[in-house]
């Protein structure tokens, strides 16, 4: 993945860490490097910039994370049918620039890339989480506030993560990505404890909205290689965008996926309709005024987000689930950030409890 970094800021305490050495070794000579005691100020937006979010993506801060690394997925809770996902924050923001990405709003006040150099503390938190879970299987992902693999050529963190998780009995690591950056992963044996998942969209969405990401075919090809290397693999059709030709294109995408990868080798497929808060929608449309995917038939839904009106969204999601099940009836599917009613309508059965679904997703 090509970065457009101009500046790297490193907190002094990590000046001689192995992570810092790897990052510095991978940077182009044109990137300036500076050391500071506290990197937080360097994560802030540039108020003079025409597009502070994009400008933030030219700055990388290697810093201490000052809050917990591991927590329950913020999309969980009573509002939506929940999959029991645990998130591990090792980085913040993403070098890709998808027009619909929630990070445009979520990290608007600190848009610089952050990589947390004290990441080994996450392993202690995971050990505590395992003890609290009393033998229940948990799925822990690094792809909530950053793409899991976008930085991996630079940081090499995947090697340490896979090593840690390969020694766990009840924890499954999920790398979630839109890249095909899998070279590090191919060097190590995950011993069944690592799953790599790809967000997949039809080519039309990729071309219009998923800037700097790998093409869908490259993502599928990377998935196949990792599957053959012993990784569990999964896919997220998320966001599903209900543009005029969406049904045709998403079905063709699934056909392409199943033609490349045996559906029996896929751990699960999640689906979720496009959703945007009013603030995110405003930001996204200002940054990407020519993206037709942002001008769909979304209306303000009861949860305060813009979503495709219900009959269209439900019908499209149900059609995709039927298509998946026609290829493999027991392939695990679930909806992300949709109500329990929508889950039942689309999946044909009441939504499972978060803990139950979470354990199924984690244990395969």
């Amino acid at each position, binding site marked *: 993945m090509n970065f457009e970094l101009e500046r790297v800021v490193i907190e002094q305490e990590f000046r001689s860490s192995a992570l810092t050495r790897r990052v510095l070794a991978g940077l182009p000579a044109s990137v300036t490097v500076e050391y500071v005691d506290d990197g937080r100020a360097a994560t802030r937006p540039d108020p003079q910039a025409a597009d502070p979010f994009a400008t933030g993506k030219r700055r990388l801060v290697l810093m201490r994370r000052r809050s917990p690394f591991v927590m329950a997925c913020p999309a969980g809770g009573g509002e939506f049918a929940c999959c029991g996902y645990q998130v591990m924050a090792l980085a913040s923001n993403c070098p890709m620039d998808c027009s619909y990405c929630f990070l445009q709003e979520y990290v608007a006040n600190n848009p610089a890339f952050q990589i947390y150099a004290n990441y080994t503390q996450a392993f202690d938190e995971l050990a505590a989480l395992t003890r609290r879970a009393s033998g229940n299987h948990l799925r822990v992902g690094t792809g909530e506030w950053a793409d899991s693999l976008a930085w991996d050529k630079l940081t090499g963190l995947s090697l340490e993560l896979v090593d840690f998780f390969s020694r766990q009995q009840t924890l499954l690591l999920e790398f979630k990505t839109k890249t095909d950056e899998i070279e590090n992963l191919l060097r190590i044996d995950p011993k069944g404890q690592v799953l790599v998942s790809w967000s997949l969209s039809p080519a039309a969405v990729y071309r219009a909205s998923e800037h700097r990401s790998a093409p869908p075919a490259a993502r599928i090809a990377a998935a196949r290689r990792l599957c053959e290397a012993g990784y569990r693999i999964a896919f997220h059709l998320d966001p599903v965008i209900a543009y005029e030709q969406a049904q045709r294109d998403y079905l063709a995408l699934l056909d392409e996926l199943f033609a490349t990868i045996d559906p029996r080798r896929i751990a699960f497929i999640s689906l979720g309709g496009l959703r945007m808060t009013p603030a995110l929608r405003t930001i996204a449309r200002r940054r990407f005024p020519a993206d037709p995917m942002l001008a769909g038939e979304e209306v303000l839904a009861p949860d305060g987000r813009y979503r495709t*009106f219900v009959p269209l969204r439900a019908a499209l999601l149900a059609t995709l689930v039927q298509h998946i099940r026609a290829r493999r009836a027991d392939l695990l599917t679930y909806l992300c950030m949709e109500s329990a009613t929508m889950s039942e309508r689309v999946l044909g059965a009441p939504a499972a409890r978060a803990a139950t679904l979470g354990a199924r997703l984690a244990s395969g």
Partner: protein
Amino acid sequence: MNSESGAEGVIRAYARDHHIPAPALERWLAMDEADALAVLELAHALGLRTGQLLAALELLGDIALRQGTGVGAVMRQPELRALLEASGSRPSRASAYLLRLTELRYPRLHQMRERLTAALKQIKLPRGVTVVLPHDLSSDELLIRLSPRTPAEFDRQLEALREQANELKRLIAALGGSDEF
């Protein structure tokens, strides 16, 4: 647009007089000159109030983006030209124009709402029973309201609902995406 004294100047003057917010003016001025002037002509022809003009700018821009064309091309569509040139008061023509723009902006939502509204009209229910589709079909909840004034009326309303239960269930299923109508 590059002439402060030409088209741009005229539009800026209009925007100043009508308190058009800067972001909307920016979008307006970003159009081709002919398209921008066509919007101005629309505003004059229909006597658009500020809120209506802002809605028109947004709807026209979105329709053009969705159709892969320009705002001027959208405005030249025969049905919109006909609305512009129709008889009637300017406020009623402005309302009709904006309503049609909204339908063009959300074509499948419009079609679905028309189908569901037609299906709802076919369901015979007594006075005091109201069935309301969700606003913008943004939820899958069908609101059914009973307003009985006497116990006997309440019984009649319940009975009527029971008689129409299958039709109402079809409506609820259609709201949830099934191809009922």
